[in-house]
């Protein structure tokens, strides 16, 4: 079967979502089979954060992939991938508040107020939840395509905040290799968009790129 035909089928989306839950399932298995190393709490908090970043990169790669390949079908996966990003971000926040802070709300509030690093993480989660809650079709209709699009461009702000959050976290130990990696991927995806918008602007009206 051709790839293009395959990605049109509902089973492709189901397969993708199943695959996207695999890291989560692996972490759950890890908790109960004691496979997360000597400090499972730290492992869970860090890996849910890393998976959030990875899904953010994958989600933002959909549009370039669609334009470059010329297959609009790729768009079918964008919403699921965006929701998976939100899912891992929520798990990350849950691990922080439940495991690290012991569900101690006054402590959590104090932590957010005191530490820009945490506040930036929380801000991007709040923004993400805004996008997740307006991701269904009815929301697009209610908002109107134009406004919906503008709202969902907030994802670029979220990406920048996520990298800043990661950078601050790693700056304690001057260990920036992964920060640079994810930062570079996201920067590349952004740069492509800017370049693409510029190119579309340059071309005479009516000519489709």
């Amino acid at each position, binding site marked *: 079967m051709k790839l293009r035909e395959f990605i049109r089928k509902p089973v492709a989306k189901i397969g993708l979502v199943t695959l996207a839950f695999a890291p989560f399932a692996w972490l759950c298995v890890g908790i109960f089979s004691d496979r997360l190393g000597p400090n499972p709490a730290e492992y869970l908090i860090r890996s849910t954060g890393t998976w959030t970043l990875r899904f953010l990169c994958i989600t933002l790669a959909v549009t370039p992939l669609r334009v470059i390949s010329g297959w609009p079908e790729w768009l079918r996966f964008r919403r699921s991938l965006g929701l998976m990003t939100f899912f891992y971000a929520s798990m990350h926040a849950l691990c922080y508040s439940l495991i690290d802070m*012991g569900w101690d709300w006054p402590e959590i509030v104090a932590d957010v107020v005191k530490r820009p690093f945490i506040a930036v993480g929380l801000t991007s989660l709040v923004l993400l939840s805004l996008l997740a809650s307006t991701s269904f079709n009815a929301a697009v209709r209610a908002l109107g395509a134009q406004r919906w699009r503008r709202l969902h461009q907030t994802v670029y702000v979220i990406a920048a905040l996520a990298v800043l959050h990661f950078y601050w976290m790693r700056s*304690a130990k*001057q260990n920036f290799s992964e920060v640079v990696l994810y930062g570079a991927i996201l920067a590349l995806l952004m740069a492509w968009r800017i370049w693409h918008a510029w190119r579309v602007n340059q071309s005479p009206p009516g000519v489709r790129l």
Partner: protein
Amino acid sequence: MLIRTHQDGFIHPLSSEITKPEAYATRRQLLRQWSAGAAAAGLAGWTQREAFAQGGASGLQKLASLPASQSNVQGAMTVEKLTSLRDATTYNNFYEFGVDKSDPARNAHTLKTSPWSIEVEGLVKKPTRFNLEDIIKWGAMQERIYRMRCVEGWSMVIPWVGYSMSDLIKRVEPLPNAKYVEFITQVDPQTMPGVKGGYIDWPYTEGLRMDEAMHPLTLLTFGMYGEVLPKQNGAPVRLVVPWKYGFKSGKSLVKIRFVEKQPLISWAKAAPQEYGFYSNVNPSVDHPRWSQATERRIGEGGLLDKKRKTLMFNGYEAQVASLYAGMDLAKNF
């Protein structure tokens, strides 16, 4: 990027590199014979280290034993439950072997610990390079069970073996104007893959004020869990300062320098707003990005259990608080 699968938890060496069981057995026998003389036991440990250095991630290979008597230094024998040897040897920071806490156990097998010497220099009567075989005899080996609190917010309880740093200091006779002691650790790009990453300026350098270095709890450490130090934990000789964050306890020491002015320590140089010279464990002085009020004891409790409260000076307040009388510890963090 650190994407791991279940396959790379233990990287198998070439089959030609795997030591045959027979070879192991004879080495152990040899070792037992050599260790018969109690005084030579530590030494034998050293020459034998290489034999057991086919580093696996388990960290559970038997190393040469290092006999010691129980310490009678005040506060040196906490009765808390020991952290498992596996956790203590597979989860630690040793940046020279990688930034991940599972890296040292994986990579430190390349460290060459014999021959080893420590250069004593600076403001001492007679600057000299001493062989490890000599240094090890300068004090009676004691076992000390210390809490170890990492600046990252986790802690362990580890039985170390060594003698008080003060025994060494008295032996090398510092001059009256020596106010601080600088500890310089091994840096060898050939055997330490981490030093190629520019995280900090190598070699890793630490320091103590003279009275801190002379405090009986400050341990010149040669072993842990009754054996010589595993490579990933700073073999063959390291420092352990139990009331300070773990990074103050330099590993694989090669130089001890006596100086007049407060030395610039590696982490304070790399991130001055986050790490200070003193770095005493202090629950009321937070790290800029996380609280130091609590800690997670490795191997203790479930995921949802409350973390432990961190104690002032890591619970050694009775022994060391007087060193800092009148000092503003928030300013001198």
